[in-house]
């Protein structure tokens, strides 16, 4: 009785651990076809106007933690909001975006 219980316990707990936040798939293409990290960051900063706190590769996505200006209601001083964004690393498209308020 104890042996079975222990075995079940070990089996159950080994299934229990959380996966890292699954970025899911941002692309199926191999690394050679991806934009360089530098080009991706240039796009984020220059084209999109965001600041980057951290840039990383998460599974098949480029991911950033950063900030961007809040869409301001007119003349108010620039407030920034925190963002977490997953990009398609091949073409730089936003795959998923989370805003922290």
């Amino acid at each position, binding site marked *: 009785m104890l042996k079975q219980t222990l075995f079940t316990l070990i089996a159950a707990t080994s299934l229990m651990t*959380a996966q890292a936040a699954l970025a899911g798939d941002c692309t199926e293409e191999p690394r050679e076809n991806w934009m360089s990290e530098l080009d991706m960051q240039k796009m984020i900063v220059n084209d999109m106007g965001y600041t980057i706190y951290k840039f990383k590769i998460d599974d098949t996505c480029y991911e950033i933690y*950063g900030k961007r200006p809040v869409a301001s209601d007119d003349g108010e001083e620039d407030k920034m909001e925190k963002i977490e964004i997953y990009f398609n690393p091949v073409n730089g498209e936003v795959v998923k975006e989370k805003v922290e308020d």
Partner: protein
Amino acid sequence: MSAITEKVKIWDPFVRLFHWTVATLFLLDFWVLEDGDPPHEWAGYVVGGLVGLRFVWGFIGPPNARFASFFPTPKRVKHHLHDLKSKQLDPTEGHNPLGGAMVIALLVMLGIVSFSGWMQTWDRFWGVDWVEELHETSANITMIMVVIHVSAVVLMGRVTGIPLIGPMLTGKRKINR
């Protein structure tokens, strides 16, 4: 042998509400509610708040809710193991010392999980790896503890013959006097 049965109060309403709410929200946050999305965060904040309240209740609540009544000192643990061996258990008690140890450990872990989750939303820790890893690791450890906790409750219920789950739902346990 006595034919008198009595319903003894074991768990007060707040302890019971706390237990089932926290269990549900933790499991939802672990398995269902997506990391970083508002429902995940709000469930986490409710857990954190309830853990804080439970901590206070552990000093001012009714006897079975108080840490003083179930804190696992070496003497108490020894006494409890002896009781188990000789099958002389008190069916009116709340947490035995080993159960008490699990409860305290779970409260600490839940506090760490919810606090580290909150920290992840702060400017100064935005995107910072160690905070994210602390949150994930403490959540995993808590989940493993939950599996042990549930198994222990089922096992101990069988071994001692003392109803455990019912009283955590209704607050009362039927005792034969």
